């Protein structure tokens, strides 16, 4: 085990998998300089054949990534901020997510789109989104939202060994958080398997991405109030490990979902709907969602703070649920 930051863990995953499979290529805007640090050193190591800076041409980048993957080259397409996935949305939404089905299962699409998500540093509404709900609705693309360095590494390695299109979202503000990471070259984290961070009996908290850290702190505070929390991080939203979540709610009878996406059609609302369907008779209180409101993110820092999920909001939601 070695301690590293989330971006370093992703960096290590790229290095290991690109060494293991010399067909993997990576491209994106300024991936050589690497503003977030995750692609640092790759160009020096693997050269311009496999690691390329692109022009600012997201529609070409995403389309080409899908085409390269179809033609047998596993491709990492780095999109910097997830908002730029939207200028390249055709390659992701109409192509990557649809082609395998439309080709009657002929196409294998080993393509991984990488982008940073989340608000909290006053980057304004066009650099602050948490758009995984949009991707969840596309039908045919996996979504990883790691919250710890270990999960980031294992999920990236699994994506790069697989043959399904994946969008890999890194919580930007948490990129600097450090954690223990395995050095086993075959350390993989499976898609569709939630991580139970803490077992408990009174309430289930499902937290996604940047909210995992908040939920850990909320669970500590709740423990002091005598509330035993079961804390689940789904890690991937497609596929989503509903079995683990539903089983937990059957045990605790209560659910809070914390998700930085806007509330409307969020991951939280989807999880709430599934639990409502499958564990209705176990619920002892209404399900609560801690999400961002249905508005673009304002710039002023106090407003941003007021609108985003935080440990206090998760505790408040949990207490309401406990009272119910």
């Amino acid at each position, binding site marked *: 085990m070695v301690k590293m930051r989330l971006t370093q863990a992703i960096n290590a995953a790229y290095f290991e998998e690109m060494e293991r499979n010399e067909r993997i290529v990576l491209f994106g805007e300024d991936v050589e300089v690497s503003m977030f640090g995750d692609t640092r050193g790759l160009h020096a190591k693997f050269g311009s054949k496999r690691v390329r800076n692109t022009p*600012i041409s997201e529609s070409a980048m995403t389309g080409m990534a899908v085409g390269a993957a179809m033609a047998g080259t596993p491709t990492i397409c780095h999109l910097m901020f997830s908002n730029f996935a939207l200028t390249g949305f055709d390659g992701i939404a109409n192509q990557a997510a649809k082609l395998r089905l439309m080709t009657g299962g002929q196409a294998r699409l080993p393509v991984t789109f990488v982008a940073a998500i989340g608000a909290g540093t006053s980057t304004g509404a066009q650099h602050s989104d948490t758009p995984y709900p949009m991707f969840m609705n596309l039908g045919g693309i996996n979504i990883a939202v790691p919250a710890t360095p270990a999960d980031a590494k294992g999920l990236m390695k699994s994506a790069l060994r697989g043959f399904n299109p994946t969008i890999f979202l890194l919580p930007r503000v948490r990129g600097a958080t450090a954690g223990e990471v395995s050095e086993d070259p075959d350390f993989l984290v499976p898609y569709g398997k939630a991580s139970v961070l803490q077992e408990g009996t009174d309430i289930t908290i499902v937290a996604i991405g940047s909210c995992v850290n908040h939920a850990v702190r909320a669970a500590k505070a709740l423990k002091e109030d005598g509330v035993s929390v079961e804390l689940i991080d789904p890690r991937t939203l497609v596929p989503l490990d509903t079995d683990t979540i539903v089983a937990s709610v059957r045990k605790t009878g209560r659910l809070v979902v914390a998700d930085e996406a806007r509330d409307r059609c969020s991951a939280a609302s989807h999880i709430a709907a599934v639990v409502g369907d499958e564990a209705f008779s176990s619920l002892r209180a209404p399900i609560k969602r801690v999400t961002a409101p249905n508005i673009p993110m304002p*710039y*002023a820092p106090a407003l941003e703070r007021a609108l985003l999920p935080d440990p206090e909001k998760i505790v408040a939601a949990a207490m309401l649920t406990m009272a119910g």
Partner: protein
Amino acid sequence: MSQPDLHHNFTPGPERLKAMLERMLLIRRTEEQLGADSRSGELPGNVHLCAGQEAIAVAVCDHLSDDDYVGSTHRGHGHFLAKGGSAKSLIAEVHGKSSGACGGLGGSMHVTDLSKGMIGANGIVGGGIGLAAGAALSAQVAGQGQVAVAFFGDGASSQGILSEVMNIAVLWKLPLLLVCEYNGYSEFSASATVNAGEIADRARAFGMPTEVIDGNDLEAVWAVAAVAIDRARKGEGPSFIEAKTYRLRGHLEAEDGFLQAPYRSEDEIDQWRTRDPIPRLAQRLVELSALTATDIEALEANVAAEVKDALQFAHESEPPGMERVLSSVFVDQRP
């Protein structure tokens, strides 16, 4: 296909040149203040400064009225001020205050003043090109002789939207001026590594009048823009200007925090310092006997006072409240 030439010997005359010198100075000093505020940690977010590129915004916007439109970029402070926005509303916005141009909800990358026809800085590279072309469509339909200008970078030129817009603008004869601010870099990548061929040739291929000019020569920009904007007003369609320039500051002020190595040489930056458009225009005015050393001091003093006032105004202003947010999502409708 033969394309009309944008060259004419129009000149603005010394008084107008002096006013433009003062505008450039206002942009420079305002941004120096914001750069200092960024480095001291006083600003909530990042800033992309345009120091060295001011002549393009100022010379082009000198031909525009508040009824004309400007679409801008992530590096938009200069366009905002050149289009008539005030230093007060700019500085307050970037400081995240309710008295800012967008009530503190937009920030540096979104400074907008619709009362001045400034339809916005933009956080999406290429985003402003589409918006400006749409404003040109609106102007064409309104039939009042308004025009729209899109400012964008050399990096943005490789976004598909530029080609799409050029095609439509020529087909529809939109009253649009496309201004590529070619500063040689797209973030940390030298332009030649991300743009094939000459950007101006892309515009020529669509059959629009196109000029490549020295963007640090305010008079040269002014003269070419005069013709292009006149053509647009008369319904003769779009034009393209590629203005060669250089940003004297980093891509963003915070870049030293993550760069592992320099991406351009000190030599190169020093070279371009000698071509700074501001001293260059001042020198020219001195040669024309239209400006004295005392005049320059007076201009500097005016601008310094304006920036100081604006900063104080920002410091004394309140941050926006939630009500402003909730009333700013939809018109007459709560989110």
